[in-house]
């Protein structure tokens, strides 16, 4: 072999060694480039729909500001999802690293704390421990609150009050079963029949909350049991009430927006989240007429807890990065910003009674910065929720 051939063989040999080494390194899970420490820390956050616009805006700002943890930039990705739908996905094991699963969120902001408890109890049965902590550093912390209030078109609210007295689920039930519709209730004949807005409970937990609240008023107490919701008299009453809903299909994520967009043609009013009503007050006025806000006797609160997934699927650094974003949401500027989305801040330093606040803007339409004396509806347990959902599927969705 002459010298040129030797050189050629050496070159090829070295190249093959380099390629084989790189391939082995890669197969072993190594990262060729860039180095792991330079990659952003990804926080995947599942967010309930009523707070999603606010949290998304905060996430965009947070990402722009390039917050770091242990030298790595934190990047927050928002996945909007109704709380009940998210709960179902957790319980059915649809989140995870396997093929066919959706990526596991680092943290979750559901509508209410009881959804966290329900997921925990489901996992306790499966894996023998909580997957979301309820105390300690990683405990679920509310980031904003809102409550359910009546939002009814003024002309309709006045006619209802003239006929039946103060607005309540019982009042609306009477309106719902009036055979002659608005003609009989005291409104104008062309208004048709009384139309109630209730979101589809399978798509929006607000629909389920409305049914629980209606049960509270029916029994005149804040705690509802399975026995209560399976009572045939109650079920008949609830079915009549739900018979006044015009269209469940189009009432998806933001029922307050639908109320303003479709006006009284699709719904005269309903018990919806205060924040949803507040951000759509101007819209309903532009397109139709003003809404009136009224507070029910039994109030359902949503506290939107920021909840970090404790499983081993996410690293300690990712969990801590999620906490960094939680702190950001709880900071004063973002608590103040929450008010402009119609949410009540959890920070005691921030007031809803500011000149630019929608609470102030719509005071004359019935919005209260400080609530009148009301009773808080207790969180329903899993059996009550599932019984109501099944009842809805069988009796209303297929009515």
């Amino acid at each position, binding site marked *: 072999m002459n010298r040129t051939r030797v*050189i050629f063989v050496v*070159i090829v040999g*070295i*190249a*093959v060694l*380099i*390629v084989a080494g*790189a*391939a082995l390194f890669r197969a072993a899970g190594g990262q060729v480039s860039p180095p792991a420490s330079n990659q952003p820390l990804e926080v995947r956050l599942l967010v309930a*729909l009523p707070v999603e616009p606010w949290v998304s805006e905060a996430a965009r700002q947070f*990402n722009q500001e390039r917050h770091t943890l242990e030298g790595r930039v934190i*990047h927050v*990705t928002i*996945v*909007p*999802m109704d709380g009940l*739908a998210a709960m*179902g996905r957790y319980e*059915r094991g*649809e989140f995870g690293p396997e093929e*066919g*699963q*959706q*990526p596991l969120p680092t943290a979750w902001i559901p509508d209410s704390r009881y959804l966290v408890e329900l997921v925990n109890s489901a996992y306790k049965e499966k894996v023998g421990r909580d997957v979301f902590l309820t105390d300690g550093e990683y405990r679920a912390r509310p980031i904003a609150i809102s409550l359910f209030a009546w939002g009814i078109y003024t002309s309709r609210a006045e006619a209802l009050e003239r006929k039946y007295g103060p607005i309540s689920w019982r009042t609306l039930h009477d309106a719902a079963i009036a055979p002659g*519709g608005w003609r009989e209730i005291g409104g104008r004949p*062309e*208004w*048709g*029949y009384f*139309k109630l807005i209730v979101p589809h409970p*399978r*798509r929006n937990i607000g629909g389920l909350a409305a049914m629980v609240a209606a049960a509270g008023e029916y029994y005149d107490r804040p705690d509802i049991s399975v026995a209560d919701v399976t009572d045939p008299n109650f079920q008949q009453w609830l079915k009549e009430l739900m*018979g*006044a*809903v*015009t*269209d*469940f*299909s*189009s009432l*998806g*994520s933001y029922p307050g*927006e639908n109320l*303003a*967009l*479709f006006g*009284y*043609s*699709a719904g005269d009013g309903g018990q919806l989240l205060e924040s949803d009503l507040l951000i*759509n007050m*101007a*819209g*309903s006025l*532009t*397109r*139709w007429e003003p809404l009136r806000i009224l507070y029910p006797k039994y109030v359902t609160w949503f506290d939107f807890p920021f909840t970090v997934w404790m499983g081993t699927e996410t690293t300690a650094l990712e969990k801590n990065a999620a906490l960094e974003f939680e702190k950001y949401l709880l900071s004063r500027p973002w608590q103040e910003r929450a008010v402009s989305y119609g949410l009540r801040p959890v920070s005691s330093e921030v007031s809803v009674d500011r000149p630019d606040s929608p609470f102030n803007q719509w005071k004359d339409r019935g919005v209260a910065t400080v609530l009148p004396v009301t009773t808080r509806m207790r969180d329903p347990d899993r059996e009550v929720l599932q019984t109501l959902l099944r009842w809805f*599927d069988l009796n209303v*969705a*297929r*009515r």
Partner: protein
Amino acid sequence: MSRQRPSQRVRRSRTSLPIIALSVGVLGVLLVCGVCWAGYQALQGGLADAVPPPNEVVLRVAYSPEKDVLFRDLVEGFNRRGEKTPAGLTIRVEAVQLEPEEMLERALAGEFQAITPDSSLWLDQLDRRYAERSGPDATLIGPVTRYAVSPVVLIMWRDVAEQMGYPNRPIGWGDVLARAQSDPDFKWSHPSTASASGILATLAEFYAGAGKTRGLTEEDVNNQQVLDYVGALEKTVRYYGEGEWATAQRVKQAGRAVLDAFVGQEQIVVWLRQQGADVVAIYPVEGSLWEDHPLALLETPGLSDDQRTAFERFSDYLTSEEAQMKVLASGYRPADLSLPLDSPGSPLQPANGVDPNQPQTALQIPPPAVVQVVQNAWWETKRRANIYLVVDTSGSMEGQKIANVREALRLFIDQVKSDRDSIGLITFNSQVYEDVPLDRLENNRAQLLAAVEGIRAGGNTALLDAVNRAYTLLQRANDRERINAIVVMTDGLENASAITLTRLTAQMRDGNRKGVPVLVFAIAYGEDADKEVLQRLAEATGGQMREGTLETIRNLYRILSTYF
């Protein structure tokens, strides 16, 4: 200036030899490394993956046809912006136009990441079908964005509306249906239940038949008296058709003679007014329905984060000021509630035949199961049809042309779902042959399909004689309860008929006045077809002329089947 001696040059060259060799060696190693790495990558990923990594993420969105102009404009506007994901991929939206029924089927097959049908009704239907496959609690519909809405209305020529009391008296479905039953010259149409406006029209009929305005049940829909009522009303429908947008275009082209009234979204009234048609929107007093054009993300297991981001960005664009102004300018009600409908420049003005303060009330939408029963019942109650398929088999049709027509005819026959509809087949070349006499499909479906298989090309083109034969047979049948129609196709010039065009069209005009109204739907197949003759045949009967090619003929026959 000094010159180097030869010995110096030689010494220097000898000193640089190892450096050159080393450089060549390093370059060689790098080159071979590159070749080996490429080979390794190809082996790892297969040939398909050897294609350079994509630098874009595509969001496939299916949309319904009635918003074709607006949606394509919005998609183009978005794609022009060249938005990028955080990873730097360019986001591109790919829009696919589909009727809602087909959209649902293909969405279930995982072909799209998002859909925007005409109504949320379809989202319910999709979730229902998905739950049947994947479990009762499973949902496919993710976040939903609304960018444009429009109420479904009765679109009428102003003079027709005024005859019914417009604008001084509220008009309802009942008035239109009563008029249709009492006046045989009243021409109205609604789309099939494959679109939201078709479902609304059909629901209104079922509500009226059941004597209700809400709480329609499966029992109501299956009640024989209700079915008879709806069946009687459906007999007054002139024809159905592929959808409100196609009807609107037809009205724009052919004007007043086509229809007195049809069902469609309010936006079409604005559009037709902009085209010079004096139509108005009637918001039915019993209640309307909204076409809310939801854009829904489909939460399929394979949905990537990049596609989710693409959906969010596209949603943001659709609700941006730029897009919302386009929405309003097109005659839709924008989802941005800060835009007043009566703002300067808005086409939603009473002068355009619409009323932004309407509708006052809506019909109740029954649950998906009942809507499904209504859709099924409609197939049984809809106006039956007598259709002659008249097919050119002259020599010029030989080869791929006739093969594609055979396939298109089979599709047409399959699409006419009810066995109580009647179809006959007439073929022509130098002669006219009645291959399969007109009969109910329950009797002759197999015979028709066999005859279609046997079609062969050869001879001249006796087009007019063939149409005349079909027309005469339909007049002779004298079936006034049904839609009577001829679907005639030719690829060439008339050259073998005994009857003249002038005589035939005069005969048809006279026959339609005195006898049974027969519609001619004419298909000009390819460049050489005599479009003028076909146009005159269609015009003489209030029908339509459509142009088809080798590629489109199948779809064209499918579209025409929706008219019956």
